[in-house]
C-alpha cells in the first residue's frame, strides 16, 4: 500500500513540476487531461487506497433493528448531526467521554454521522445513560417552560437545543430507541 502511495505521489509531483517548467502547459489541450489526471491520482490515493484497508469488527459495531433504523432516519432528517458529534478521539480533550471510537464501530452506518461541531455534547455513548422518559421530556422541549417543570428529568435550563414536539408518537419512540442504541 505504501509503495502504491509513494508511486502516486511521485506521479503527481512529476505532473506538477512538468506543468510549471513547460510554459505552454496551460494550453487547452494539455490543461484538461493534466488537470483530470491530477485529481484521479489524488482520488486513488486518498479515497480508494484507504477504503481497501480491512476494518476489524468491534463490540460496538452492531447492526440496527428496524425501529432503530427508523429513529436513525429521523436523526438524519432533523439535522442532529450539525450540533452533535459521534466520535471520541484518543486525546486529552476527549478523555472521560467513554471508550475511544474505532473504525469498526461504524460498520453499519449509512450514512456516517461522525459530525463536525460540538455545540451539543458527544453522543457516542449516550445509550443507557438516561431513562426513556428523560429523552421524551428533553426532546419535546429541552428547557423547563412552566414552574412545575423545574427539576423534571430531561428539562435542562440553559440548553439551546431545538424542541422536537412536532414529531409523531411513533417517530419519537423510534428516535429514542436509536439514541439508546448508541453505546
Amino acid at each position: 500500500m505504501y509503495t502504491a502511495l509513494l508511486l502516486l505521489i511521485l506521479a503527481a509531483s512529476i505532473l506538477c513540476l512538468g506543468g510549471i517548467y513547460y510554459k505552454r502547459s496551460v494550453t487547452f489541450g494539455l490543461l484538461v487531461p493534466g488537470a483530470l489526471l491530477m485529481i484521479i491520482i489524488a482520488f486513488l490515493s486518498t479515497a480508494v487506497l484507504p477504503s481497501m484497508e480491512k476494518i476489524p469488527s468491534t463490540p460496538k459495531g452492531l447492526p440496527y433493528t428496524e425501529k432503530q433504523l427508523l429513529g436513525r432516519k429521523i436523526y438524519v432528517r432533523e439535522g442532529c448531526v450539525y450540533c452533535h458529534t459521534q466520535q471520541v478521539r484518543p486525546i486529552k480533550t476527549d478523555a472521560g467521554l467513554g471508550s475511544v471510537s474505532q473504525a469498526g464501530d461504524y460498520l453499519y452506518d449509512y450514512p456516517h454521522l461522525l459530525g463536525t461541531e460540538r455545540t451539543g455534547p458527544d453522543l457516542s455513548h449516550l445509550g443507557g445513560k438516561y431513562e426513556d422518559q428523560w429523552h421524551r421530556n428533553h426532546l419535546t422541549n429541552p428547557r423547563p417552560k412552566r414552574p412545575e417543570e423545574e427539576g423534571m428529568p430531561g428539562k435542562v435550563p440553559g440548553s439551546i437545543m431545538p424542541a422536537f414536539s412536532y414529531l409523531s408518537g411513533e417517530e419519537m419512540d423510534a428516535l429514542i430507541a436509536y439514541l439508546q442504541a448508541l453505546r
Partner: protein
Amino acid sequence: MDLWGFLSDKENSAARNFILSSVIWLALVVVVALVLAIKFNWPDFLSNVSWLSFGRLRPLHVNGALFGWLSMSNVGIMLYIVPRLTGVRLWSERLGNLTCLLWNLFLGFSAVTLLAGYTQGREYAEYILPIDFLLMLCLFLLLYNVFKTVLTRKEKVMYVSLWYFVGALVWTPFIYVVGNNFLMDLTGLGGRGPVSGINDAMLNWWYGHNLIAMWFGNLGLGIFYYFLPVLTRNALYSHRLSLIGFWTLAFFYVWNGQHHLIYGPGPDWLESVAIIFSVLMVIPVFAVVYNFFKTAQGKWHLLFQNSQEALPLKFLLIGGFAYFLTCMQGPLTNAPRTINAFFHFSYWIVGHAHLAFLGAFSFINMAAIYYVLPRVLKTPVSLRLANWHFGLFATGLMTFLGVLHSSAIIQGGLWTAKIQEYDFLTGATLWRPAVEHIEVVRSLQPFYFAIMIGASLMVVGILTFVINVLWTAYKAAGRQEAEV
C-alpha cells in the same frame, strides 16, 4: 419580455441573469442566517414548526450560500470575463440563459426538499439524488458553453483566469459525482450509499474539501486574477508565479480531505498525508498572495477614496487580504495535530468557513459585481448605498469573526480542562471532564449574543447591496423601455 430575459440572445444577458439571480438567493440566505443566529439566543424563536427547525434551516443556509449566491455570482462573472479574455462572444448566450433558468429551478427544488427534511445527511452533500442530477446537467451545459468559447478564441495565449475556469469545470463534475453517493435511493433518507461508516466519512470529506477549492476557490481566484490588474491598473506582477500557484494548487489541495477527521477513527497514515499536504498549501497560497500584494502595491490608499472608480477595488483589496488570512489558518491552525486537538469541533472551524466564503470570496464577487453591473446594464450603481454596504458588512464581519474565533478558545479550553483521578483499587489514572457540557453552552451565551449583533450588521449591509443591485437593474430596464 421573454420570461424576464431568460431566453434572450443579447450579449452579456446570461451574465446579467446569473448575477441578478444570485443576489436574490443571497437575500434569502442571509435572512435564514439571521434566524439561525437568533435561535442560538432564543431557541424557542420560530420553534415547534418542523421546517423552521434549526436542523432544517442550517443546510438551507449553507447550501443556499454555496450553490445559490456564490456559485451563481461566480458563474455570472465568469460568463462576463470569458468573452473578454478570448476575444469572441460567448458561444451561445441562449444556452447560458437556459442554464441560468435550470440553475434557479434546481435551487428552488433544493430549498423545498431541504425544508421538507429530504436530505442525504452528509455535510455539503445534503441534496437528494434528483437534485444532484439537475445540478450535474447545469454544470455540463456550462462546461460545454465555456469550452466551446475557449476553443474558438481569437486570443492565442490563455490568461491565468481562463486556466482556473477550465480547471474548475473539469474538476467539479468529477468531485461532485464521486462525493454525492449517486447509488443512494431517491429520497436520501436512510439510503445506502456504496460504502458505510468511516469510508463514507472519508469520501464525504474528500468531496466536501475539494469542492471548496476546486469549484469556489478556482472560480474565485480566476475572478480575482482578472480584476486585480483591471482594478488596480497595474500589470500583473508575475505570470511565472501564477503558473506555480496553479499547478501546485492542483497537486496539493486534492490530498487534504482527511484533515477534517484528524484523530478520528480513520487510518493514521492518511491523516499524516493530509496534514503534510495541508502545510504544503502555503506554496500555492503565497504564489497568489505575493502576486496580489505586489500588484496592488501603491494602491491601498484607494481604500479611503470615495468614488465610483475606487468602489470595486475596495472590496477586492479586503477580499484579497481575507483570502490570505483564511489560507494561513489552514496550514497553521487547522491541520497540525496538536492545535487541531484543541480547535476541532469548535467554532474556530465555523469562523474559518465564514472567513473564506464571506470574507474572501463574497468580497471578491461583490467587487466584481460592482464593476460588471454598471457596464452590462449601462447604468451606474448608487455610490451612497454601496458605501453603507461596505461599512456595515466590513464592521459586522469583523465583529462576527472576532467573536466566533474567541468563543472557540473558550470551547477548546473548557473541553480540555480535566480533573485527574487515581483509582486506588486498580492503580489506574483517570481523566474526568472538569465541566459538564451544558456549562460550556451556558458560558457561550454572551458570545452567541455578540455573534447575533455582528450577523445583523452584516445582514443589513448585504440587504443594502441586494437593494442597490436590483434597483440598478430596475432603473436600467425602465431606461431601456424608454429608448424603445
